[in-house]
């Protein structure tokens, strides 16, 4: 990458504070193979600002002023770094270098692949075994006498964007599996993603059927029938098409579309109306603009928020999750979810439903596993959607951003329900874009295997786990009512807020803004030290733990016995 750096160092650069433009730090700007680094001259503070090249979304250069050339760097996590460079030539060089460095053409140029994989070989290998997807299926009780593992996709024979290991209804024979996959876009046949042990209802996912106006597939019809039969006691299933009905109908002209209720016995078709990736891309750009407005009036802000449509889309995704979760937990009905290809809206709807249904997915490890399952393993196209390499801008779309935001909106409604805090979500978002770890490279499990990413890069998950103290929600308690069972969020429009922690992080205040999270975290840390001190003096009975109050005593003996 070094050959793309035209100017490795520029002196007397000003880093401008956008909230107080008159305040600026003077320092030196360095371009390295991986980062843009600004180091303040002031010998007392020497503050450093680092921006990873892969996080750079764009670099603007407004017209040169008498005091120099401005460079405005927008990052993929919606931060803005504004620099003033004395010489126009230097500014142009920096801009050109960054333009190239921030848009790698090959995977090998990415940060995670630029480091020697064998430097920490053992640590690297260990990092990839941190999460075990199969163990999570076993945690759900799968396989069982209803759902079994099929070898049909080993070596990615029926679907190259699916994981090699798939769970299907026990009654689905190999011809049904293969036939169904042939009748689905890109071979993405209906398979299990979540199994609800209490009701025996399941969430399955797939892509749209190749039904056009009249085509049908006996095997695909049998597949959906088999899914229904894998839920004893139910006599129909829901097919949730997460697209607006109009879009789904338009697809029929191209030989695709949705299930004809006359051909599939015992299905109830439900359209949800989540918009496509292009609408979402434009909408996010608008809400980023709202976050960057300099001194908006309240009217500007609310109008911008409304016309971006962003919260409306977030609500649609959450509503989809709520519909699925209610069907599974309250009605005990299995749900088959699809959109067009079944890797964007389907991933959103299924993973939101899992978060609502299953307390485990509201823990740090659980959310990691959920992303690993519904997004990574099922072929969400990370490298295309998050622009890892120079490519088609029409493929880019903030699909997982919306999932993470749904989780954030939920955490605002259920402050005790999540083990992690906002910072965890913001950090996950960052890593989806940054490519510092190999987890999100490529567009499918097969691509990652072919690239040998496990051998060449490290996994993000153990790193996040190591830093879990800073991502912990102090209000979370495993035995709290909010951490039990299903979440039933209110999705009335007034329950949605703009995610300031994501789209409007710049704002400063004096004295620094206090957050209850940080304060309570500090209190809990102190509490722990006090407990240790007391335990050392045998003041605390052996049962005493880090849990606040005396709530633990409320647990009935039989309940604690069964745990």
């Amino acid at each position: 990458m070094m050959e793309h750096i035209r100017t490795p160092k520029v002196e007397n650069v000003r880093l401008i504070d956008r909230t107080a433009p008159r305040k600026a730090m003077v320092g030196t700007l360095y371009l390295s193979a991986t980062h843009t680094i600004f180091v303040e001259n002031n010998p007392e503070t020497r503050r450093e600002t680092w921006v990873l090249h892969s996080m750079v979304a764009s670099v603007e250069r407004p017209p040169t002023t008498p005091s120099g050339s401005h460079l405005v760097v927008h990052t993929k996590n919606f931060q803005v770094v504004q620099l003033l460079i004395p010489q126009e030539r230097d500014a142009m060089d920096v801009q050109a270098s960054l333009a190239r460095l921030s848009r790698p053409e090959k995977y090998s140029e990415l940060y995670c692949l630029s480091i020697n994989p064998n430097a920490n070989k053992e640590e690297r290998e260990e990092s990839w075994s941190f999460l075990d997807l199969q163990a999570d299926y076993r945690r759900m009780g799968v396989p069982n006498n209803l759902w079994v593992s099929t070898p049909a996709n080993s070596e990615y024979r029926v679907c190259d964007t699916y994981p090699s290991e798939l769970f299907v209804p026990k009654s689905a024979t190999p011809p049904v599996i293969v036939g169904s996959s042939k009748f689905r876009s890109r071979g993405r046949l209906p398979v299990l993603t979540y199994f609800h042990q209490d009701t025996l209802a399941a969430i399955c996912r797939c892509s749209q059927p190749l039904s056009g106006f009249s085509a049908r597939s006996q095997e695909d019809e049998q597949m959906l029938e088999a899914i229904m039969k894998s839920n004893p006691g139910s006599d129909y299933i829901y097919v949730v098409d997460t697209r607006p009905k109009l879009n789904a109908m338009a697809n029929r002209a191209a030989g695709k579309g949705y299930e004809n209720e006359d051909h599939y016995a015992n299905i109830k078709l439900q359209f949800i109306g989540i918009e496509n990736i292009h609408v979402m891309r434009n909408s996010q750009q608008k809400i980023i603009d709202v976050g960057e407005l300099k001194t908006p009036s309240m009217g500007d802000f609310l109008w911008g928020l409304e016309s971006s449509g962003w919260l409306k889309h977030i609500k649609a995704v959450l509503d989809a999750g709520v519909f699925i979760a209610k069907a599974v937990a309250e009605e005990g009905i299995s749900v088959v979810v699809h959109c067009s290809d079944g890797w964007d809206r389907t991933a959103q709807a299924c993973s939101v439903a899992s978060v609502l249904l299953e307390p485990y997915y509201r823990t740090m490890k659980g959310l990691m596993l959920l992303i690993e399952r519904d997004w990574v393993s099922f072929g969400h196209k990370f490298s295309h959607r998050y622009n890892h390499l120079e490519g088609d801008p029409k493929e880019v779309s903030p699909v997982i951003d919306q999932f993470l935001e749904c989780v954030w909106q939920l955490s605002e409604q259920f402050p005790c329900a999540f083990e992690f805090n906002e910072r965890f979500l913001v950090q996950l978002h960052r890593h989806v874009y940054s490519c510092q770890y190999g987890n999100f490279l490529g567009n499918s499990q097969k691509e990652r295997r072919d690239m040998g990413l496990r051998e060449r890069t490290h996994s993000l998950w153990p790193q996040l786990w190591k830093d879990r103290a800073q991502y912990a929600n102090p209000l979370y308690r495993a035995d709290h009512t909010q951490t039990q069972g299903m979440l039933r969020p209110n999705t009335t429009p007034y329950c949605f807020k703009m995610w300031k922690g994501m789209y409007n992080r710049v704002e400063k205040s004096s004295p620094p803004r206090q957050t209850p999270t940080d304060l309570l975290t500090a209190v809990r840390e102190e509490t722990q030290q006090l407990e240790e001190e007391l335990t050392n003096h045998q003041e605390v009975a052996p049962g005493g733990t880090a849990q606040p109050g005396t709530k633990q005593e409320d647990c009935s003996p039989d309940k604690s016995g069964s745990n």
Partner: protein
Amino acid sequence: MEFAELIKTPRVDGVVLRRPFLPTVEGTLCLTGHHLILSSRQDNTEELWLLHANIDAIEKRFVGSLGTIIVKCKDLRVIQLDIPGMEECLNIASSIEVLSTLDSVSLMYPLFYRPMFQVIEDGWKSFLPEDAFKDLESMTEEWRLSDVNKDYSVCSSYPPLVAVPKDVDDDTLRKAAAFRHGGRFPVLSYYHKKNGMVMMRSGQPLTGTNGRRCKEDEKLINATLRAGKRGYIIDTRTVSVAQQAKARGGGFESEANYPQWRRIHKAIERSSILQESLIKLVEACNDQSHSMDRWLSKLEASNWQTHVKEILTTACLAAQCIDREGASVLVHGTEGTDSTLQVTSLAQIILDPACRTIQGFQALVEREWLQAGHPFQQRCSQSAYSNSKPRCEAPVFLLFLDCVWQILRQFPCSFQFSQHFLVLLFEHTYASQFGTFMGNSASERSKLNLSQKTVSLWSWVNRPQEVERLSNPLYEANCLVIWPSVAPQSLLLWEGVFLRWKRSSRCLDEAYDEMVHIIQYNKELQNKVNNLRRQLGAGEQED
């Protein structure tokens, strides 16, 4: 007039009550002079006791002989009563209508209410101007307490005692009063201990179209300036509104006559516009459609958040002039009883940590709103649902509380009280068993002899159990000036008031309880450890 004459049907059986978040109850409806009561004989169902004064509007509907009355309360709650029998329903409805709109002060509930709790400290005596002045005296000798208004003849909306510059005599005050709207001559609102700068407030100067001037008024406010220093006059109105006021005899301070003062105009709206905004906001919150676009556009169209932003911005400006610029400030709008008080009281929350305590906040409300002559009775006689033509109603104080909530939310550890206290004040300004917010000025309250005839809200609030309920577990005394962000992204809709009856707060309440637990448990352990350390220390000494 006897209440009995107004109650056409005192009692109906078999009435079904539906209200937010509580199960439906069937029981007996009773009307008394001041309350609408619904009780069922079953255990563990909560009775309804609703003050007629809390009722803002009612609607009647009939299906066959079953009548339904929708009761819309000033605290924004909406409840439904299903009453069997058309005649009973009509009687109840018309009785409620009359009882909830009685104008006669002598019939108001606080005059009938007898406290069921022991008054430890009489709230009517808790915040006397004399006591507040003692604090000021300990900081500066430049001010005196004048009793020029002892019989309310100089200014009917001022209290008998006001703080004014020491060098200005009562005669000057009288002349300045004649030059200010409503006789509201400039008086001390706040003294900033850190640098000795002050904030004053008044009504607009009566310059009229001819540009009248008043030497005494100029002398009065110049007396607050240090040699060579300039002050700021913050006019809460836009230039054009202030210009228009000249035609009606009002106006603003001209540069020529007040050369030592720089005038800044802001744009806080007049009270009638604020009332309209409240009505629109509440309507938006009650809209049942589930469209995001519609909600956001209605929220925007209500302009409520714009008002919050404008008021906070102006308060920050006043605070900035005092703390950052080291200048004294005079704040006024037209009458000096509404937007002026929003600004002066919020500026004190920003500047003065004492105002962020439970007692200090009461003192602030007492000083800057009650004593300062905010016409509570006029402003709060109707709320967002009323169909009758608004007269002087306006949510001026509610907007102030909303702004305090915004600051509290941004600085969750800097306030001794939680939002419960703000919600409680909102409720009691509109309907109360206490006399605190009755009347429109100190003079009216004194004529009604309320301190003898009614109980003060502060007597209730300042009991230990209530103080505990209103306390903020995160509070850590903070002696700093706190600068809230007034960016629109930082200002949220106050759910605790506007969505209170729309969405359940159970999960948020649980989070709050959890927070209290974490902090209490920590304190318990700290005590234990301290004891242990003390014991160990003592043990070592014995050895």
